[in-house]
């Protein structure tokens, strides 16, 4: 640098002038030079402190430290690589999880304008804790009467069969209000969104906006696509627009392929037209508040409108109200399901980071010992403690900055991992992307800085406290190693063991919970039942034709070899499809003034209970004679009998579903309907033949493998109608697995992070013990010379390592007892203090610790006393 050179020249000219003056006064040249220099003082030091006066000197100094730090790290690449790897794991784990939180919970719809202003509108029912969907007429009334809300946006996920040419496939899309695209600020790249009024009128506006992907993949980017017809569920729709490429819909979980206006709901969903039915709750809307309006104010207004509606429509709206939720609390998509998983992942990633920091801290301490000489010399020639600490921290910052870059790269690579894992579980295309935006990057930078302080500060402070005189006198005595230093190192290893123990316990708990769920009795047979789904709407069937198809199919599959029985149902248990839900009234049961008795129901065909192995406690099950021309009947479950008949025999009595009386002909044993974790709830069954559903599944009771059945079933279907395509055949167990996917993700994440943590802790323990053995080789040699056997030394080292581990496990157990209760939501029939999980975690920890200590212990035992003492 020019300035440096000039300073050098300036000081040199000073020296020279002093020297010349001395010569002029008669000193001999050699003496004059020496005297001038003595008078001048420490040339380098003068330069150094003069430079301090310059503007931006600190930056200069820091750049110097940086250069020096890089040089020092390059001199010990093994240490540098190890430390950076540890930190990359820690920072990478965090960046990945933050990316998921950002992409799935906080900013799930980046293509939507001002997505942070969107709120979810969810229905509530007095006396119940969950959330419901919203009825369309209520939605319209809210939009008309609320003044604090800028827009209400109607939205509901739906699935259809899409046929293009001779290919048919299942696609996911949305039924939306006409203002949808305008309200969320998504402008179609071709054509238009929906026009006002297109969500009005029964099946009046068969128009659709398709996704960019569908346009590219199925229509090869046809520029003249607008105005062309596309069949959805066998109904021709006119394509009026193509959505921009980054827009996947407003749903967390699946990428959407098409959008249709709400007026088409009846035709698409097959059967009930729900737009005029205040009792049918199905819409999953969003709301955007007017500027300056708080959520509480808006909720207050909505509650007021809902009270008006309750007075106006008591039969359907009794006890119903609505709340506004932030996007991440939406009960209507995968975010609600992922919330507990991501919360745990966040905690676990933090643990991994802490363990990594402890590890690198220990590495730094051990390394400081190797640099004792260099540091002592630097202190001796006048470097300040503060400068030394700054220098050491700069080196730590280099490590963590490199690791932060690596960590962000890890997060970027892992951004689609969740989608991949979920998709691999059940072969459906999921979209669960991480969003690596500036906020995630800023957070990673913050973590990087914090962890630098966490792992770098203690070693730096300890190292700078070198006893100068002592260190210079004795070349070899431990300066950092003894006393405080070793205590700190043991402490860090203890923390690592404790943290990984907590993780191991969590892994154990979740694994046991998943096993419990798998073994839980759902109230129906989970073995020897396979199923496949049909969508007759797609093939343009009406009620009569569909019933004929079902009869023909039943006859054919029952005739297949190896099939014991077969039955239909509208919805299979444990699926994401929602059961029908209706207000019910009874002749003998008088509801409380503000109680609205409702129950969920499913439509099932003859032989359903026998095929699924649900016992009929009394009465009979449906037969082919329970059809459109006979009296309307129902089978109720035991909880419904207990609640609404007070345990009396309901057979022969009747109850009202919406506005229609049905006779009870049987009582079925309680089963689980949506998840094994649900509480018993009132549930009833109606005959499929009395309440037609265009979409249904067929169950086969068989010992055969689904693969063996695929061809015969397909042949049977095509013999009846070659245009009907069944979904692939899966076992009922596989069907149930779909809804436990998030549980399994949690297990996977926890197991992965737990494994990482365990490995890091093992490395830490190994490092500590190996270092301790190498430092005390004299002592070990002496002991051996005095008669200790190899086995004694082995025991000595092992017992020290295991004692430290035991202490870590005790601390970890205390921590786990406090922390695992946070997992209660996630656990099924496993106490968060499950002794077996704690026991197994302890055993694993002990085994890994023993393995980590074994190497150093063997080295200690193989010490040659003669050589050690001679050295």
């Amino acid at each position, binding site marked *: 640098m020019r300035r440096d050179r*000039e300073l050098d020249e300036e000081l040199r000219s000073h020296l020279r002038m002093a020297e010349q003056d001395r010569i002029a006064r008669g000193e001999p040249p050699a003496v004059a030079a020496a005297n001038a220099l003595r008078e001048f*003082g420490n040339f380098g030091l003068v330069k150094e402190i003069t430079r301090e*006066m310059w503007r931006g000197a600190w930056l200069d100094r820091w750049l110097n430290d940086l250069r020096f730090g890089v040089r020092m790290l390059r001199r010990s690449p093994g240490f540098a690589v190890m430390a950076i790897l540890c930190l990359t794991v820690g920072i990478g784990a965090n960046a990945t999880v933050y990316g998921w939180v950002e992409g799935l919970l906080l900013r799930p719809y980046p293509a939507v304008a001002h997505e942070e202003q969107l709120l979810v509108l969810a229905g509530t029912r007095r006396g119940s804790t969950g959330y419901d969907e919203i009825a369309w007429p209520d939605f319209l009334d809210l939009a008309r009467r609320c003044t604090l809300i800028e827009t209400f946006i109607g939205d509901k996920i739906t699935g259809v069969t899409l046929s293009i040419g001779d290919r048919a496939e299942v696609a996911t899309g949305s039924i939306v209000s006409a203002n949808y695209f305008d309200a969320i600020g998504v402008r179609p790249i071709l054509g238009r969104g929906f026009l006002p009024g297109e969500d009005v009128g029964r099946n009046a506006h068969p128009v659709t906006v398709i996704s960019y992907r569908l346009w590219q993949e199925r229509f090869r980017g046809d520029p003249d696509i607008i105005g062309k017809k596309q069949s959805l569920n066998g109904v021709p729709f006119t394509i009026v627009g193509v959505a921009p490429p980054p827009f996947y819909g407003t749903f967390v979980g699946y990428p959407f392929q098409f959008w249709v206006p709400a007026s088409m709901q009846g035709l698409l969903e097959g059967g009930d037209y729900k737009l005029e039915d205040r009792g049918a709750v199905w819409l999953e809307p969003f709301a955007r508040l007017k500027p300056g309006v708080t959520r509480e104010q808006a909720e207050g207004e909505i509650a007021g409108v809902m009270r008006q509606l309750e007075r106006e429509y008591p039969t359907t709206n009794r006890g119903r109200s609505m709340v506004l939720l932030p996007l991440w609390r939406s009960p209507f998509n995968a975010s609600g399901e992922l919330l507990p998983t991501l919360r745990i992942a966040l905690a676990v990633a933090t643990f991994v980071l802490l363990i990594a920091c402890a590890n690198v801290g220990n590495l730094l301490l051990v390394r400081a010992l190797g640099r004792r000489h260099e540091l002592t010399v630097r202190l001796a020639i006048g470097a300040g403690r503060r400068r030394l600490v700054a220098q050491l921290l700069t080196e730590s910052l280099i490590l963590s900055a490199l690791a932060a870059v690596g960590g962000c790269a890890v997060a970027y690579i892992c951004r689609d991992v969740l989608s991949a894992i979920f998709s691999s579980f059940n072969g459906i295309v999921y979209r669960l992307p991480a969003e690596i935006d500036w906020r995630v990057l800023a957070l990673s930078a913050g973590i990087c800085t914090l962890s630098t302080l966490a792992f770098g500060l203690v070693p730096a402070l300890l190292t700078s406290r070198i006893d100068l005189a002592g260190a210079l006198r004795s070349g070899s005595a431990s300066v950092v190693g003894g006393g405080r230093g070793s205590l700190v190192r043991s402490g860090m290893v203890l923390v690592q063991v404790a943290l990984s123990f907590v993780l191991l316990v969590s892994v154990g708990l979740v694994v046991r919970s998943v096993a419990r769920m798998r073994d839980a009795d759902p109230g129906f047979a989970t073995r020897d039942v396979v199923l496949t789904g049909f969508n007759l709407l797609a093939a343009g069937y009406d009620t009569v034709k569909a019933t004929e198809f079902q009869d023909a199919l039943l006859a054919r599959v029952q005739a297949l070899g190896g099939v014991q029985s077969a039955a239909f149902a509208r919805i299979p248990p444990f699926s994401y499809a929602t059961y029908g839900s209706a207000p019910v009234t009874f002749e003998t049961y008088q509801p409380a003034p503000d109680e609205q008795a409702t129950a969920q129901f499913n439509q099932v065909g003859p032989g359903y209970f026998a095929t699924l192995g649900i016992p009929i406690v009394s009465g009979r099950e449906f037969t082919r004679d329970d059809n459109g021309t006979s009296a309307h009947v129902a089978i109720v479950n035991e909880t419904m009998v207990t609640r609404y008949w007070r345990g009396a025999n309901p057979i022969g009595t009747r109850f009202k579903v919406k506005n229609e009386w049905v006779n009870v002909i049987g009582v079925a044993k309680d089963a689980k309907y949506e998840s094994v974790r649900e509480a018993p709830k009132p549930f009833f069954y109606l005959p499929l033949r009395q309440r037609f559903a265009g979409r249904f599944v067929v169950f086969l009771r068989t010992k055969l493998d689904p693969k063996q059945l695929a061809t015969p079933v397909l042949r049977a279907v095509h013999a009846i109608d070659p245009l009907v395509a069944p979904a692939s055949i899966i076992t009922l167990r596989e069907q149930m697995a779909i809804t436990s996917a998030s549980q399994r993700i949690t297990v996977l994440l926890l197991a992965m992070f737990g494994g990482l943590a365990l490995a890091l802790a093992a490395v830490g323990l190994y490092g500590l013990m190996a270092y301790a053995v190498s430092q005390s080789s004299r002592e070990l040699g002496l002991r051996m010379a005095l008669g200790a056997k190899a086995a004694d030394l082995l025991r000595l080292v092992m017992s020290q390592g295991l004692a430290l581990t035991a202490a870590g496990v005790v601390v970890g157990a205390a921590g786990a007892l406090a922390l695992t209760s946070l997992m209660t939501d996630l656990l099924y029939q496993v106490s968060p203090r499950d002794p077996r999980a704690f026991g197994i975690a302890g055993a694993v920890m002990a085994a890994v610790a023993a393995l980590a200590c074994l190497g150093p212990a063997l080295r200690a035992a193989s010490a040659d006393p003669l050589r050690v003492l001679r050295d």
Partner: protein
Amino acid sequence: MTRIELLQGTLDLIVLQTLRWGPRHGYGIAQMIRAGSRNVLQVDTGSLYPALHRLERQGVIVADWSVSENNQRVRVYKLTAKGRKRLAAERSKWAQLTEAIQGIMAQPAEGET
């Protein structure tokens, strides 16, 4: 002979005062302070050069390269307008200070008479 180490503020004042008679290099300033104080005031290079560079940064003096009487390239400092103002202010402060201290010192200490 006792030599007195200078405090920072005092050193700044003396350096500015020295430069009042014209541009000078660092060695010259040191020599002049020593001669002017009849060898009582000793200026370390470790204090002088940081002071010069600090004053330069504050804009009260400017530095330039020139050639000395014995043909050496030297860095010479001279006062700026701002420096003259500062010097005037510091001088009057100094005068007040010495007067005040002398006043205190001149009072007979208790029990001294």
